[in-house]
């Protein structure tokens, strides 16, 4: 899988090499080796938008029960999880009854209980989780990964995002910012959000404008050739025109996508046992099941980074009802995804990441909901070279603040890149006279969770 040998990387600094490779080939999507071999080749990021509550999912806090019902300022109270926890797997990882199916893969999960981030507003926190910065327009995590490693299948985008909504920066959540635009995420089923009902069904979803009603495929190919020859002649005349190079790339990818993507997205072609397993055609699980199944098919076909959006875990009201509904929608599909990847031998090289932009406090407000909490939350990883069956880091005894082995989201990003064989301090891009990194000046790799 190591490519890019033509560049003769030998002792060169890799950060320079990455940029050179993209420049030299004019195609930043060609696969490249990282700074060192990494176990993970691909990433599936199950983004739980809205912020699931840690003490109700993967951060078991028996002490909270003792404080249960104790008043807190503002007509609120400490509140134990309405769901019971049980221990699963060889490792005995405690997982709440929200996720009985995912729990069967406890020995694969590396649960990080000590996550923390900087801000507890959704729009900013979401952008920080997905781009590293809430203040500035920065490339998304997926774009950085594709920039670093290229992608294996040139007929598909390197980065696909399924069911993203328009909120919190819209396309910025999967944008390339100053990185080559070919590294930007391609959205499937982007939707309007706002009514709290979740993304519209993926069933029968077609990528907008991916079919042409006027031209036969061969005629469109000829048309595309004309477009690209015009572009290349113009580029030759301009000599320097980075945006035009981006346009050329966008047509190549776009054109190939319109033939391959519909096939891959047609998950109804899968055998019925697979469809059942992912919960397709069952109302509660159909949509996320389709998303997960597509994610598996994409990764299998060589897409580097797949981001799935499920929300809105923002239960300021009715925690019990809201979390249950979202868990019901996602537990079986996620479990199926893990099982399926494992059976196909893909889990070792696919890093699955689950979590939201922040967490929630161990406190119930007057509306029977939990508010926002950036000081402590939980994410989990599976496959891709992480230690399974591990519960890493802690929050305080009530589950409020990250305490031991704290992992900031910059650390998470650094670790994610590390697992892919990329050094977050060397994966840089020079823009406007300055080298930029996903982790800015922050980030420490959490070596303890690397297998």
């Amino acid at each position, binding site marked *: 899988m190591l490519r890019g040998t033509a560049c003769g990387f030998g002792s060169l600094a890799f950060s320079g090499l990455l940029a050179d490779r993209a420049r030299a080939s004019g195609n930043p999507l060609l696969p490249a080796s990282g700074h060192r071999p990494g176990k993970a080749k691909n990433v599936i990021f199950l983004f739980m938008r809205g912020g699931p509550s840690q003490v109700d999912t993967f951060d078991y806090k028996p002490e909270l029960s003792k404080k249960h019902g104790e008043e807190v300022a*503002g007509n609120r109270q400490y509140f134990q999880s309405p769901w019971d926890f049980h221990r699963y797997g060889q490792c005995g990882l405690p997982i709440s009854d929200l996720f009985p199916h995912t729990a069967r893969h406890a020995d694969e999960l590396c649960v990080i209980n000590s996550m923390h981030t900087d801000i507890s507003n959704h729009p900013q926190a979401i952008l920080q989780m997905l781009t590293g910065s809430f203040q500035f*327009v920065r490339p998304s995590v997926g774009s950085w990964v594709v920039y670093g490693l290229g992608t294996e299948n040139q007929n598909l*985008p390197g980065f696909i995002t399924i069911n993203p*909504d*328009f*909120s919190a*920066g*819209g*396309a*910025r959540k999967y*944008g*390339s*910012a100053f990185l080559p*635009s*070919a590294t*930007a995420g*391609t*959205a499937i089923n982007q939707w*309007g*959000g*706002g*009514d*709290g*009902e979740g993304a519209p069904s993926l069933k029968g979803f077609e990528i*907008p*404008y*991916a079919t*042409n*009603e*006027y*031209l036969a495929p061969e*005629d*469109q190919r*000829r*048309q*595309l050739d*004309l*477009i690209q*020859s*015009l*572009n290349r*002649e*113009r580029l030759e005349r*301009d000599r*320097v*025109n980075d*945006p*035009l190079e*981006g*346009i*050329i790339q*966008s*047509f190549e*990818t*776009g*054109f190939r*996508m*319109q033939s391959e993507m519909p096939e891959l997205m047609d998950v109804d072609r899968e055998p019925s046992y697979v469809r059942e397993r992912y919960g397709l055609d069952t109302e509660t699980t159909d949509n996320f099941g389709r998303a997960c199944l597509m994610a598996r098919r994409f990764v299998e076909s060589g897409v580097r980074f797949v981001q799935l959006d499920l929300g809105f875990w923002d239960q300021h009201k009715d925690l019990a009802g809201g979390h249950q509904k979202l868990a019901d929608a996602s537990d079986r599909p996620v479990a199926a995804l893990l099982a399926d990847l494992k059976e196909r031998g893909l889990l070792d090289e696919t890093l699955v990441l689950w979590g939201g932009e922040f967490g929630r406090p161990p406190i119930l407000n007057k509306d029977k909901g939990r508010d926002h909490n950036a000081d402590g939350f939980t994410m989990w990883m599976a496959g891709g070279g992480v230690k399974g069956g591990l519960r890493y880091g802690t929050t305080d005894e009530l589950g409020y603040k990250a305490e031991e082995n704290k992992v900031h989201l910059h650390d998470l990003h650094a670790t994610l890149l590390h697992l892919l064989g990329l050094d977050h301090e060397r994966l840089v891009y020079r823009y*406007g006279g300055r080298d930029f990194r996903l982790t800015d*000046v922050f980030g420490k790799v959490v070596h303890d969770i690397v297998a």
Partner: protein
Amino acid sequence: MFTLFRVRTSFAAAGFALFLVAAPDSEAADDPKQVAFFEEKIRPVLVNHCYECHSPEAEEIESDYLLDTREGIRKGGASGVDAVIPGDVDGSQLVAAIRYGDERLQMPPEGKLPDAVIRDFETWVEMGAADPRDGRSRLPREIDADSHWSFQPPVRHDPPEVEASAWPRDAIDRFVLAELEKQGLAPADDADRATLLRRASLELTGLPPTTTELDAFLADPRPDAEAFEEVVDRLLAEPGFGERWGRHWLDVARFGESSGYSRNMLYPYAWRYRDWVIGAFNDDLPYDEFVAHQIAGDLLPAETPEERDRKIIATGFLTIGPKTLNESNPLLFELNVADDQIDATCRAFLALTANCARCHDHKYDPIPTDDYYALAGIFRSSRNLAGVATNVRAEHEAARPLGEDGDKRLAEIEAAHELVAMLQEEYKELLKPRDALRKELEEKGIDWKKNPSPELVAAETRVQSHKDKLAAAREGIPENPPFAMAVDEGRRISEEEWLAELEENKKKKKPTDPRIADSPVYVRGVHTSPADPVPRGVPTLFSDDLPAPEIGPGESGRLQLAEWIVNPENPLSARVYVNRVWHHLFGVGLVDTVDNFGLLGAGPSHPELLDRLALDFVADGWSTKRLVRRIVLTRTWQLSSAVNDRAHEIDPDGRLRWRFVPQRLEGEALRDSILHVGGGLDREAPASSQVHDIAMLQEKALQREIGRRDFYYSQVDDDVNHRSVYLPMARDAIFDSLRVFDSLDPNLVVGARKVITVPSQALFLLNSDLVREQSLSFAKRLVAGTPSLDGQIDLAFRTIYSREPSSAERTRLEAFFQGDAPDAESWATAVQALICAGEFRTLY
């Protein structure tokens, strides 16, 4: 002794705490022996162990403690406790910290210093803490804020002397050329006429030139400069100017036609603000007035009802922002609205980010929390008339009536509604005796329909006549006057009166209109922790040069705020605006960060030029059109975009303006240009907006929620051919034809659009009906009107790219048609290819 200190409780955050008393300079400072002790024993330790976190060079200064000067090391940091008290070893917090005696305050954090070193410090303090390091220790925010370039009054600079003295046409050219010559660079050649015409047409009106315009300009026998001047004046006079430049401003004004956030409610009247902006650019409303109308138009004199309406509509700026209409806490909602207004006002007009100061003093810019709440007081003293509501928040439900008799009509409508409500109540009352009579008969076993008692007959008659009255009253509700989104002044009533009303309204679950009053500071931005109110006022950051205006007790202060912003002495307003104009004309501002002139913003590439432009702009009557005209008539703007290798190596981004850097067209200009080529563009402005029409399908404001299934999405029509600026701009629901091309985000003040290139753009251009239809429509004209293939190819290139084809391109197209005389369908495919190719959406 530790009780002397207010020590932070968390060990992680423990730093030197802080201090108030400035110690007097000690004579010890002058004693050479003691100074030698300091130099030998103390300074090296400070440099090696402390400066990393406690000097201006620190990446982040811990606890605001700077010990790089005598003053700083003594004064201490954020805790307010003296860190070094000459002669008082045990009272000096610095000594306490290095002794490691208190686990909450141990410095340096990486480990205790050797005992000998600690003893040196004790000795040094004991002797009088001699310290030769003069100067003030100031946090970067303090140091820079005083001298930060954009907070200083602009200075009028004469343009510098240049070697190539024949080249410049305007002072601007001389400023630019002088910088180039400093780098040993020369400007590129002038752009050719065709390129220039296309550049000017797209930049000024958002549309490419027609072939007639192209031919006329190419054939103009006058010298280039003269001929071009006429072109520029023609373009400035076209309605397209306001449509394009108005759209630029709408980006800055975070214009949107719905509330966004979790309950996305339509704004039926936002379009009036949009049209006002476009009109203001077309009429060249002086920028100072343009600003003042948006903040306080309702408070400015007006000679005619139309003028009054225009000024009212302008204040829509303050209330078209996103709103958290699902916020259950009314105070928090109000504070969020004020926050949006503060943010939009400060960013749009001053390029300052003020809203950090909602929770704490701004970390970089000199905007303390008090300033934020002084502004909040101004906005909270104003009423939002937005025509939008949910079942949770109805504060902004009323809209502002327009027209000479608008208020009267609204009052009549309200009276009529009240009459209906009253009659309805009465009607209910009348039913009771009637029903009782009916029941009475029923109980006696009498069929009251057939044998009504006389009393019942009389009752029925009364009911019927009342019913008729009610119907007539309903019928008599007058039609609505036209409405606008706007703000006006809060009420002048005492706090007691207001609170009483609040109580009363709470019972009725009705919102209470705001009164004119100062806002408390909310500690750390938390709405449940009000502290003392601060007087309503303007930011204090350049109060030395521009005194704070007086705000009377019965005034919100919006008028004074507006006057303060457009005061020629305000060092930011004109600079920020001329930079925005420069940004649009060159693709990048003289200051890159067009929305941030604060300490975290970029510095100007040509500071003297920026000042000069700003001062000239004010002196020239704040005219946008004359500013644009001036810039596009410079040689700098008219340079070709050809790349010179040496210059490119030194300045790849072209910030020195050695060439015209090609720009990408925004989604709006691209869509409009496609329609223009295809002949489908509808140049008429729509009467209002689709958003208005769709909203009106629902009688009540609280029913106009976009997310409610099949309400908005099933009604909105994207098959319309108006210019893009008129397309519906409901937040988070923008048409694909615009959305795929830009990261247009009406939730934020966006002075500089982000250019993105993604495959979905290619797919839209290749496969959408819009592009195919317009391509076909042009192809039909082409085939019908031009007999030879050669002529067709010429005309296609001149229409689409405003230039002749190269011979290679001609050959390429002939090959594409494979020698056949192409029909309209084949030509449509080729036309579409020309539209898809990057040149069409590039401004060279």
